[in-house]
Every structure is written in structure tokens, then in C-alpha cells.
């Protein structure tokens, strides 16, 4: 075993894990916020996330074919695709709630879950259909913005690209705004009130349906932002790209304590780090016996262990009994 190598790559792996973790955290927020108010898992969130990535790439490709791609400064481009992706995903999440979940609000809890899985499949193939008619492509490539690929060498073995900084900065900024929104505004108070007790909130004059739509809007928009960042960071998306990250983000939400907003962030980062370290170190530590393909097994084993000792997740609180 080459100990020097293990030490040399450590900071880089840490950085890779943090970037991946922030991405998971942004997606996990959508799961956890919806669970917080409805105690229901929105499995269509992984597609809401990837729709953001598709809207982002479509904006870039349209600008490029219009010849505007090189003229517009890159921060403006990024802002444009982030806002576009967030708007589209947020609107989609609200529409999905209105069409597929609200009519089932009073049904037993498994029913909306099945509906969510159905919406997930439907959206996957809808994206595929639209993209094959519109562009006749399955894989869509994010146009490269050269500035974003510029790398800063921090030391000889660790460097960071502009786009990684952008991902981290954007994620931190959005998490901070969300924190302010939920904890410092009247809307946030209303969301927390609905999460605590819908009936009582409604008696206090809160329009519960509007607050639930708003929750989907915020969760969807976060997912859309994550989608755009995912596309910018990894460069290639297809209609099924959302599924695995969505599953991982759901895991992150559970790991952090589902229904708990800071928990989703912590869970996302922990899962991202676990995955990055497993993928980079497993084969080095075991002399090739376990390769990077075991990263998920490793990450999920840790998840199981954590949930055995902390069933409510890392930051989870006792789930309220419903009256």
C-alpha cells in the first residue's frame, strides 16, 4: 500500500465529496420539505431535478445557435440558466402536486406514494419523448464555458476548478436564503405551522393549500438549481440521469433526518463524502480486491449502521404523532 499516495490525494477527494454532497443536499431539500408538511415521499422529485438540467442545457443551446453564447458574460449566463431551471422545476413541482397529489390528500398514505412513482416514470419518458422530437438526441451535452474549466492550483496535488467553486458558492447561497426564508419570514412561519399541525394552522387563518403549493415550489426550485449545477459540473445528461442522484438524495434526507432542513444538508454532505472516499480509496486500501464499483455498497452500509443507532437520522427529531 502506498501511504504517501493515500495522503496526497486526501484533500482532492475531500473536495470532490463536498461538491457531490452539496448537490445531494440541494436535491434532498425537496424531499425533506415535502415530507415535513405532508409526511409523504415525493418520488417524482428526481425527475423534477433533471428537468432543471434540461431547461438549463436548452437555454444554452438555444443561445448558442442564436450566436449569443460567446457574447454574453458567463456569470450572466449562469444566472440565466439557474433562474430558468429553478422556475421550470418549481412550476413543474407545483403542477405535479396539484394534478397527482392533491386529489389524493385524504387517501391512505400509500396511495399518493404510488401516484408519485407513476409520475416519476411518466416524466422520464415524457422528457425522452420531447427531446427525441425536438432534438433527436438522447444524451445532451452542456456547452463548455471555458472560464468555468479554469483550474486554480492550490498545491501540487490539489486544485479546484472555477465551476466547482461556483457549485459550492451557489449551493451555500441558496441554503442560506432558504434558511432565512423558513426561519425569519411570515411565509416561513406559515410553512412551519402547516408542518406542525395542518388543522390548527388552517384555524389560524393560514391557507393550507397555498402553503403546500409553496413548499413544492421551493423544493422544486432547489431541485432545479441542483439540476443546472449537476449539468454544469458533469457535462452530460439524459432523461434517466435524475433517477440515481434522486435516490441518493432521498437517502441523504433520511440520513440527516427526514423532514428536517438542516438535516438534509448534513445528510447530503455526509453521503457525498462517504461516496467519494469509498470510490477513491477502496481499491487502494484493499489492493484492488474491492474497486470503485463498491462505493454504493459501502455508503449504504454506513447508512444502515447510522440508522440502527440513530433511527431518526443524524439530526432527526421525534416524529410527531398525528391526531
Amino acid at each position, binding site marked *: 500500500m502506498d501511504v504517501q*499516495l493515500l495522503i*496526497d*490525494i486526501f484533500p*482532492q*477527494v475531500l473536495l*470532490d*465529496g463536498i*461538491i*457531490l454532497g452539496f448537490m445531494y443536499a440541494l436535491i434532498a431539500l425537496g424531499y425533506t420539505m415535502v415530507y415535513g408538511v405532508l409526511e409523504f415521499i415525493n418520488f417524482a422529485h428526481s425527475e423534477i431535478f433533471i428537468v432543471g438540467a434540461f431547461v438549463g442545457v436548452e437555454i444554452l443551446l438555444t443561445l448558442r445557435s442564436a450566436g449569443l453564447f460567446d457574447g454574453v458574460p458567463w456569470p450572466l449566463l449562469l444566472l440565466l440558466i439557474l433562474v430558468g431551471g429553478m422556475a421550470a422545476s418549481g412550476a413543474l413541482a407545483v403542477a405535479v402536486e396539484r394534478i397527482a397529489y392533491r386529489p389524493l390528500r385524504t387517501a391512505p398514505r400509500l396511495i399518493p406514494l404510488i401516484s408519485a412513482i407513476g409520475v416519476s416514470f411518466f416524466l422520464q419518458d415524457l422528457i*425522452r419523448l420531447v427531446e*427525441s422530437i425536438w432534438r433527436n438526441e*438522447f*444524451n445532451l*451535452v452542456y456547452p*463548455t464555458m471555458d472560464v468555468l*474549466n479554469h*483550474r486554480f492550483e492550490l498545491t501540487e*496535488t490539489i*486544485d479546484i*476548478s472555477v465551476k466547482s467553486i461556483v457549485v459550492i458558492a451557489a449551493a451555500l447561497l441558496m441554503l442560506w436564503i432558504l434558511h432565512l426564508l423558513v426561519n425569519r419570514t411570515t411565509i416561513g412561519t406559515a410553512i412551519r405551522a402547516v408542518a406542525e399541525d395542518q388543522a390548527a394552522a388552517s384555524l389560524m387563518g393560514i391557507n393550507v393549500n397555498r402553503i403546500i403549493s409553496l413548499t413544492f415550489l421551493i423544493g422544486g426550485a432547489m431541485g432545479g438549481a441542483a439540476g443546472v449545477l*449537476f449539468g454544469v*459540473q*458533469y*457535462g*452530460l*445528461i*439524459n432523461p434517466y*440521469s435524475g433517477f440515481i*442522484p434522486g435516490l441518493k438524495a432521498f437517502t441523504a434526507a433520511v440520513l440527516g433526518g427526514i423532514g428536517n432542513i438542516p438535516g438534509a444538508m448534513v445528510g447530503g454532505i455526509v453521503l457525498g463524502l462517504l*461516496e*467519494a*472516499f*469509498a*470510490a*477513491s480509496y477502496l*481499491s*487502494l486500501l484493499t489492493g*484492488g480486491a474491492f*474497486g*470503485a*464499483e463498491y*462505493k454504493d455498497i459501502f455508503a449504504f452500509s454506513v447508512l444502515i449502521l447510522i440508522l440502527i443507532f440513530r433511527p431518526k437520522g443524524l439530526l432527526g427529531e421525534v416524529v410527531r404523532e398525528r391526531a
Partner: protein
Amino acid sequence: MSRYPVRLILVLLAALAIVALPAASSLEAQGKGTIKIATQSPLSGGQAALGEGIKLGAQLAIEKFKGNLEKMGYKVELVPFDDQAKPDVGVANAKNIIADKDILVVVGHLNSGVAIPSSEVYREVNLAMVSPANTNPTVTDRGYKNVFRVCGRDDVQGVVGAEFAAGTMKAKSAYVIHDKTTYGQGVAEFFKADAEKKGIKILGFEGTEEKSNFDPIITPIRAKNPDLIYFGGIYEQAGPFFKQAREKGVKSKFLGPDGMDSSDLTKIAGKHVVGMYYTSVAGPVSVYPQAKTFAEQYKKKFGKNPEPFAAQAYDSAAIGIKALEAAAKGGKAPTRDAVTAAVRDVRYTGITGTIEFDAKGDPKKALYFVLRVASDNPEKWGDNKEVKRLTIAAPAAKK
């Protein structure tokens, strides 16, 4: 009320379709009947570019060569199936194929991992499968009478890659990545074994199904800094990997097998793969003198350049038709058994050379190429330079 007429029209249309379809086909079925040639390749999903090339290549061959069979009174049809590059879908399609008695030849698949289980199904009824692209040795090493391929094999292709890495690229160390499929892992293992024999140090051998985030795999590679990275897999996964590796500052040279051979590789990875090498069992159309008119016709008819394996699919379908003609001689209707037996005896000079099958269904002599990516423009994929060409006989089956 306003919806009512729409619904009525839909019902009427459906009824019309049900009545009209059998009527139309019974009109066409005059003569001795219909012979169908099926293609199985991914027509949707990330590998659709190659899969569609296989379908269109076969279609072109059928249109060109069906004349003789039509003179004998048969109607010749192409039935394309979409195997989605998934073994389960391929097998399900295969079951539908053997249920259709008119299908006498299958041209397919793209992926060895799909071809192997699907050909087990064809074997039940001794239906001939002529493969344009499956390179895994197992495809023919099982010794099935009904399985043929017009291309080379991975146990040779891996060695060709290793020889090129050691000889021309002068690599001293290599890192091998594969996609854990029958094809990708298979060719990667053949590469690794022979590279070690030739004194190349293998710094890592890693399988991954990851499609987007390669960061954690790239970090150790960058630290180990190998001369060469070999990717045993297909372009839709290798493209993002190569792109992310270069963007992360990996300086190693890239090498891959024929799974790299698609214009989509440059569409995905752009300038980052220019200058990389790949081995192939299917040379670009430009290396086959006879293929020039094929490429022109293809472009004229379908509006795009033929993808790799389209020419091989064209030859596969042509071999199928030759066998059908032989089986239909003397006026009796061709059976699956007769067609399968006839394929073995076909000696056919097509656009990718002269093809004769040995006892296992491998071509007696197969061509292997090493190619270099010439341009980051996907339109110019066909201009990739041939660096090396070898003619190698298929190895005998190992028990």
C-alpha cells in the same frame, strides 16, 4: 358535449384500422409469402446512434438485394427491433422473433452482453443470427450452429490494443477502466493480460457503472499519472470520463476498443479526445474501397453519414439474403434450418471484404484497425486516420 365527436372519430378510426390492416396485408401476401429479416439493435437510449446505423445498413442491403427473392415470388421485409442495449429487452424481443414464423434471419446485436442471451433463444428454433458488431469471444465460442459474426474478436482486439500501446505509444504504465458489461470488461481483461506480458505496468483495474460523476475515480488516476488510460466500454460512458479527466488535468494518453467508434464520442468529449487512439474491428468507410458508393447511397437516403457498423450490418444482411436465396433454390419455401445451414457455406465479397465462416461462425480472416481521432467535429468522424491494419485469423476455440 363538445368532447363527444372527438371520441367518436377516434373510435371510428380505431375500428377502421382493425378492419383495414388485415385486408391490406392479405392483399400483399399473394405469391409465395413473406420472408422477414429482423434487426435487433438499440434504437433508443444512449447507444442509439450505432444501433440505428445497424438498422439502416441492413435496410439498404435488403432494398438492394431483394430482387432475386422477389422474382422467386417472395416479398422481403425488414422488421427492426429495439433491444435498448439491455439483455432482458433483447431476450424478450428474441421470443417475439422466434414466434413469428416468417422471420428467417436476424441481423444483430450491437452489444455482446445482449447478443449472448438472445442467441440462446434463437438457438431453440435454429434461427440464424448474423452479427455485425459483437466482438466478445463467447458469442461464437459456444459453437452454436446458428451464430455468425462478420467482425473480429475481443481476445484479438485486446491484444492488438496492448501491442499498439507497448510498441507505437511506448507506454510503460497503464490504468484500465471498464464498464462491467460482458463486452467492456472482457476486452479490458484481454488488454490487461497482454499488456502485462509486454511489460506495461498496470496501475489500476477498475469497473464502474457510473455515467456522470467520475471525480472519485479520476483523483487516484491523476495521482498515479499513468502513461495510458484504457477504457473498455462504450462512448456514452467513455466520453464524459475522458472529458472530466482532461478537465481535471490528467495528462495520460487515451486508448479504447471499438466501443469508442462513434461520432457521438466527439459530440460528448469534443477537443479532449482529439488525438486519442482506438482499436476497431470495423474500419471507417473510407478504408474500404468498395464502400464508397455505399456511403454515398446511405447519405443520400438517410441524410447522414453511416455510423461504424452500418457497413458491417449491410454485409450481414446481404449474407442473410444470399443464404435465403440458396435455401429457396428449387422452388421450395426456405426453412430456418435450411437458411442456417446455407449461411455457413456463403462466401461473399461485400463492402468490408471477403467473408467466409469457419466452423464456429467466426470469419476465417478478420481485419483489425488502430485509428486516431482526427477532429472535434462529429461530422468529420469518418476522417479518422487509420494508423495500423492487421489481418488475423480467429483463434481456435479454447475449452
